[in-house]
């Protein structure tokens, strides 16, 4: 298999799906002539022309809503947010229009739309630009939320999202764009199904639940832990909604201990929900409370050291595991 960047993987998914289906188009700020703020859409304008690769004004609510409308009449828009921190100004379109249309119309209108872009803290972008939005969107009935951590998942989840007839948010990660990973050769269709977690590392002592940015941290933590005699299973959720509860419960039933590592803020975060579901279904399997590594509960500071103190890290995961797994 090739090793390509997460960035290229997303780019390939866009190209393949646009080639497959003329109803698919890409819209967002700087996606066309500039080739994308993070160069995700490199070459797409040239390949597909300005009809299908469309630069927008700075008007997230406007173009998100345009996408919802276009989807209602059968096109399949991919709406890029330069970052999901900017999706906050389009919140109503994402939360009130996209997922409600099917219900409100009594099933007449589907909204096959994809909202995608980098989500969560990157590096020193400050309080306004570092939002982890996954828990807000995952709360909303009618939205699917997937969060690729690897290049292959970045490609395969996006392709699945584009084909799904429901609104899907693909929350990528700026810090992962340049990371590399194995992806099937061109010509092989890469479709990663929703609702299937990936076990990146098997282990018997503790389950580390992670996704997106925290997967690499969890893998590093698992190495460190191994040296200390703790054998961690690392489970990458990939899809937040639908959630692969089976895989999670199976793993925890084996390890009896859980640490959730998330880039999210703590209060009502993804880990809160995971904890609830785990204890609901397999209360008796838990030998220790579910532990979490999250952001600290403060607006993100610009200063590098302070930012680092706010974010999850491999070290923090190690410490959290050691607290629930006495060695």
């Amino acid at each position, binding site marked *: 298999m090739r090793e390509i960047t997460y960035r290229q993987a997303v780019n390939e998914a866009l190209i393949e799906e646009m080639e497959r289906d003329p109803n698919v188009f890409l819209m967002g700020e700087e996606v066309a002539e500039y080739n994308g703020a993070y160069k995700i859409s490199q070459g797409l304008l040239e390949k597909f022309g300005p009809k299908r690769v469309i630069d927008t004004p700075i008007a997230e*609510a*406007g173009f998100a*809503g*345009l*996408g919802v409308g276009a989807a*209602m009449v059968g096109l399949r828009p991919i709406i890029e947010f330069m970052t999901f921190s900017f999706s906050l100004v389009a919140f109503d379109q994402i939360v009130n229009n996209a997922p409600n249309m099917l*219900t409100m119309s009594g*099933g007449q*209108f589907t909204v096959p739309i994809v909202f995608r872009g980098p989500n969560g803290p990157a590096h020193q972008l400050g309080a306004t630009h570092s939002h982890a939005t996954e828990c807000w969107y995952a709360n909303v009935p009618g939205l699917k939320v997937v969060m690729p951590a690897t290049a292959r998942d970045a490609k395969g989840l996006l392709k699945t999202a584009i084909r799904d*007839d429901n609104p899907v948010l693909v929350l990528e990660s700026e810090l992962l764009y340049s990371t590399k990973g194995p992806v099937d050769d061109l010509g092989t269709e890469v479709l990663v199904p929703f609702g299937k977690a990936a076990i990146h590392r098997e282990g018997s002592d503790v389950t580390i639940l992670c996704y997106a940015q925290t997967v690499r941290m969890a893998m590093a933590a698992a190495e460190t832990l191994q040296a200390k005699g703790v054998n961690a299973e690392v489970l990458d959720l990939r899809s937040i909604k639908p959630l692969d509860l089976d895989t999670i419960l199976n793993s925890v039933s084996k390890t009896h201990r859980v640490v959730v590592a998330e880039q999210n803020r703590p209060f009502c975060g993804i880990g809160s929900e995971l904890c609830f579901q785990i204890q609901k279904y397999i209360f008796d399997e838990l030998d220790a409370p579910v532990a979490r590594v999250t952001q600290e509960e403060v607006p993100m500071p610009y200063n590098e050291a302070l930012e680092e103190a706010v974010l999850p890290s491999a070290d923090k995961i190690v410490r959290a595991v050691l607290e629930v797994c006495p060695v």
Partner: protein
Amino acid sequence: MHKSSVVEQELGMLSQMLLIRRFEERAAQQYQRGDRIGGFCHLYIGQEAVVAGSVAATRPDDYLITAYRDHGHALARGTSADSCMAELFGKATGCSKGLGGSMHYFDKERSMMGGHAIIGQHLPLATGFAFASKYRNEDRVTLCYMGDGAINIGAFHEALNMAGLYKLPVIFICENNFFSMGTHAHRSNPLKEIVNRGKGYDMPSVVIDGMDARAVRDGLRPIVETVRTTPQPYWVEIRTYRYRGHSMSDPGLYRTKEELDKYKDLDPIAKLAKQLTDEGTLTQEKYDAMDTEAKDIATASVKFAEESPEPPLEALYDYTFVNTVNGQPATA
């Protein structure tokens, strides 16, 4: 258009307006009973000429979208009174299967793209329909209605700006009934005239008298034809008035009886009836028959709604996601 078909069209407009009015009178009665219609309910009475005239200027496959004051728009598009009343009753036979309610009427078959209840947020959707028409080289025009209160919210601005930039075939129609709930338009925007708002987008803009169905049709027809052949947005202010409160719970204390009466004297139904009568194409007898028919349809719709089944409880989970991929049943 041939003279006889003009007459036919105008009689059609008149009976449409009558149906809207009689339907809503029945809806108001049913609402007041307290046990049949829930949530908010906003009546269109007084504004009928706007939708009757504008629908007469368009094709049935042109997209139409509006806000929550949407009963008239669905009825004008041909959605049956039965399914409209059933929707108010929350019945499975409603135009949105009882899941949408008064503010969320949809009729896909008739390109009625919904009543939408969050102010201004349907304007971007309208640009999406227009975008799709252009993308597919279809000559369908989108009509996007909104109230005078909607012109002050951000989504309005983003939609008009993008429509102008991309030259989308969408006509933005402000149904200026002078009030947004209890707030007169002069207290919600700094404009001398709402039509001026189009200037901020260098968008062609016109004002139309919305108490006159013919004026609405004739004012819109050339615009519709221009937009159909040369995609581009228009900004249209149609001046009208609502006779009832903002919603069923509003006593309307913010306006005088004199003002209300002044507009009732300009009643759009009476006006078109008089025009047709003066011209010899309508008799009192014919008018009465039309009105009786409208009343009968409206009354029958109540019965239909009463007798219709509730949506089944088991269906509760059927409308959150569709289980299809690319429009085909999901295989896995």
